[in-house]
């Protein structure tokens, strides 16, 4: 028997597998499970967008695209950021089309992080930042956001975590798993600290179209003095329900994008061609779909937040993404215990908050990317579960 561990890279071996999986795997083996654990839109890609992908195949457009992405798509991405967030990016030098937002995150880390550089990553957050930072040779420094701050990042917490080795700040808002957003004044405070300490910001704006309560997403790149030190990550997965097409992009200062493009060129070559044709249509004619889906999510969000608060699992009002992050401390259970018992006793799957960082302990992530009827049924079961917990069953 070969001992492969001596061949395998020690950094990758030390990475833990994602903690979201466990409950999904249990759920998969059970009958009549109602899952609230999936983190992607339940909508199908709007038909006119799919149709453009199909049409490109019918026309035989099956070759590689240029490394950076098709010029038309880069132009549309640039137009979109101008139209929605008043930011100007030169399509030929400041934009790069990637295989999902996640590739862009990976490229950004690998292009900027030097061995031993510290990267500040607020938690709870999506599970990819820490591992990708480590694999780039960086040292992730996690800082906690708090329920009492509505899980927004506070400038004082950022300030406290900065050392001479700090190079970068990851800004994952609207946030998975908390649903928190950052408003302009929050970002202005963060920007002050970033500028004072000469940091680069990686702003993951993949949920930018999913904000509620008349609060439009604000990109930190639009805050005074931040444009030159921000890499914006975005993509089509969440806004246009295009997860399976695997298409994202990065926008930022030309010298950074140029290095990221080098890595992309050698490692990936170019993003999927069919997906790019579909994405051009999405950006050109997809605003109505985005608004429709946002309205639907908003209705679900209100139902879920209201129900959890009514059940006594307090939950701040999340203003972004499609997650709520209720506090389960009142049950006396840990996040893992809560999720295990909920799935075993009521066949409802949610994700323990600590899967997104230790500070998520005492919370669970509930996705409302499900139909209203599905949510209603799941919430009824959770209510029963809490009732039985209280009666000591």
């Amino acid at each position: 028997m070969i001992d492969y561990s001596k061949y395998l890279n020690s950094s990758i071996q030390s990475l833990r597998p994602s903690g979201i999986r466990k409950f999904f795997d249990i759920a998969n083996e059970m009958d009549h499970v109602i899952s609230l654990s999936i983190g992607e839109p339940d909508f199908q890609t709007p038909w006119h967008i799919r149709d453009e992908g199909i049409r490109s195949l019918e026309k035989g457009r099956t070759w590689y695209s240029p490394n950076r992405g098709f010029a038309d798509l880069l132009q549309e991405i640039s137009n979109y950021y101008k139209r929605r967030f008043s930011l100007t990016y030169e399509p030929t030098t400041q934009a790069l089309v990637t295989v999902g937002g996640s590739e862009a995150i990976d490229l950004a880390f690998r292009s900027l992080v030097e061995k031993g550089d510290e990267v500040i990553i607020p938690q709870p957050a999506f599970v990819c930042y820490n591992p990708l930072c480590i694999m780039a040779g960086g040292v992730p420094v996690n800082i906690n956001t708090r329920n009492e701050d509505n899980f927004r990042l506070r400038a004082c917490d950022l300030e406290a975590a900065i050392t001479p080795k700090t190079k970068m700040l990851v800004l994952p808002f609207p946030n998975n798993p908390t649903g928190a957003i950052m408003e302009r004044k929050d970002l202005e405070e963060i920007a002050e600290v970033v500028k004072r300490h000469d940091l680069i910001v990686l702003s993951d704006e993949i949920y930018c179209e999913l904000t509620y309560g008349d609060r439009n997403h604000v990109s930190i790149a639009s805050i005074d003095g931040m444009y030159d030190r921000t890499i914006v990550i975005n993509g089509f997965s969440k806004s246009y329900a295009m997860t399976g097409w695997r298409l994202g992009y990065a926008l930022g200062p030309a010298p950074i994008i140029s290095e990221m493009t080098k890595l992309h060129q050698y490692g990936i070559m170019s993003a999927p061609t069919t997906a790019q044709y579909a994405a051009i249509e999405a950006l050109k004619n997809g605003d109505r779909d985005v608004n429709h889906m946002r309205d639907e999510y908003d209705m679900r969000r209100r139902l879920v937040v209201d129900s959890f608060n009514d059940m006594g699992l307090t939950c701040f009002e999340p203003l972004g993404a499609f997650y709520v992050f209720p506090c389960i401390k009142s049950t006396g259970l840990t996040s893992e215990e809560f999720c295990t018992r909920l799935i075993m006793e009521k066949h409802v799957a949610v994700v323990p908050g600590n899967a997104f960082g230790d500070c998520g302990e005492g919370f669970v992530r509930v996705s409302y990317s499900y139909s209203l009827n599905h949510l209603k049924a799941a919430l009824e079961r959770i209510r029963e579960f809490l009732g039985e917990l209280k009666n000591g069953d």
Partner: protein
Amino acid sequence: MTKLLKLLSENSNFSISELAAMLGEPEEAVKAQIKEYENKGIIRGYQAIINCDYLDDSFVEALIELKVTPKKETGFDEIAEMCMAFDEVESVYLMAGVYDLALIVRGQTMQDIAMFVAKKLSTIEGVLSTGTHFIMRRYKDRGLNLTEFGSDKDERSLIL
């Protein structure tokens, strides 16, 4: 259609407090609005959608086309009204196209429906001809998938 009507038309089982939460309005306002819809006849009723394939004591339904001669004074309304009066008739629609009225008729057996058409419908004055189409299977009804297959299954997988 208002958001409230849309929600109720999708699922009339939502409680007042759920509707209020989803719409971001006070419960009292939602309650009053529903009362108003009911009083004005905008909301006509609340019914369960039943998948009859699961029932032992099933029934048969047919779509009946009627060609009729409209009456001078009342047009199609008088004949439509006569059709509506039968308990066997579930729905009556005035159609544009090759025939005039479409009826959904329900009976215990195909024979029941055949006899009903022959004796009750075709004998109505002004009815020129009938055509009977039996419904074999319901795949989708009022927006709901009634089958085991199709789009209701969650095909998403958890990736992280």
